């Protein structure tokens, strides 16, 4: 597996001043995916933004892991409902134009 688009977890933790155990907990709860190459942990670049958001929840807003899991789930639902609203609005527009 390539590490081109990945960042080493160690490096990430030093840069963000966070504990590796926190990343490990996020992985265990399925909130992020870790790539293991030769016993080293990496995070894919496309997950960095999500990970930074989870860090803000935990370290800045003092939300515990259970809370983060719940919030993440709710945010996914909000996002899905937001997309549904767009689809329904476009459908409504279609029928309004037909009148």
């Amino acid at each position, binding site marked *: 597996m390539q590490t081109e688009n990945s960042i080493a977890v160690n490096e990430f933790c030093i840069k963000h001043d966070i504990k590796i155990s926190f990343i490990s907990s996020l992985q265990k709860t399925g909130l992020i995916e870790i790539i293991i190459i030769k016993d080293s942990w990496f995070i894919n670049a496309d997950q960095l933004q999500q990970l930074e958001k989870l860090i803000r*929840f935990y370290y*800045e*807003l*003092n939300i515990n892991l259970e809370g983060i899991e719940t919030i993440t789930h709710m945010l996914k639902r*909000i996002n899905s409902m937001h997309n549904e609203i*767009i689809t329904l609005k*476009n459908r409504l527009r279609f029928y309004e134009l037909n009148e």
Partner: protein
Amino acid sequence: MTFIDYYKILGIDKSATSKDVKSAYRKLARKYHPDLNPNDKDAKKNFQQINEANEVLSDTEKRKKYDKYGNDWQHADEFEKSKQYQNQSSNSGRQQSYSGSQSEGDFSDFFESMFGGATSAGRNRQVKYRGDDYNAELHLELIDAYKTHKQELTVNNKKIRITIPAGIENGQTIKIAGHGGLGTNGGPNGDLYIAFSIANHSKFKRLENNLYTTVDLDLYTAVLGGEITVDTLNGKVKLKVSPETQNASKVKLKGKGFPIYKNEGQFGDLHILYNILIPKDLTDKQKALFTELSKT
């Protein structure tokens, strides 16, 4: 520029301890943090206000200055001059500002006037702030959304070239990573979110990936059948009309609809509704022929 009551923003009174400030801030930050309120401009505005209030009230020096000159902020400069003669520490320590979207531009004119914006103690701690996310709306015509194309945008006086994939939906938002506000102290840039508003002035109506249109058909072709040419968004196509085609009957042209977003080469269908035109201004001879027909 108007006075901002930071105590009121945090819902605390003037005698609040630093612990009370922290607690009130955390409570409100959890409520209004942009990460928890996606696409909510009001929450973002509230968050900026509470961040600013916290920036001032959690910093001993700033709070002292604010309490002394808050209502009379125009004279705050005098405070600065007198402060130079005082033996004081320049860094009040560990107050925390949340990094969700804070940047220099997030402070009010009132704050900038009193504290000079980016020179705050919070920033001196070299806290990395992610830049602001920017939101923009891009107006397109339906025909523009039919083909993948590049478009140049000016965001904060900076030109950027983006690729708009074919099949984008009205109301859909795409993220251009790193093109939001600049990060502070080496923090990453924010992202640019572009919401598409797609106007439709064509004869086609769009529903997801399918297009719908009405085609007028003369009575004779409808009755006897024939061949017609119909417009699609991608040019004209020839279409066979079956004899005895009824008014309001529908045909579907597979793959002649709208491109499917990020599925290159795949298209929805074009649905055609026939509108059969009854001849007008008939001549006497035509009327006679129709009369004869009606008797058969």
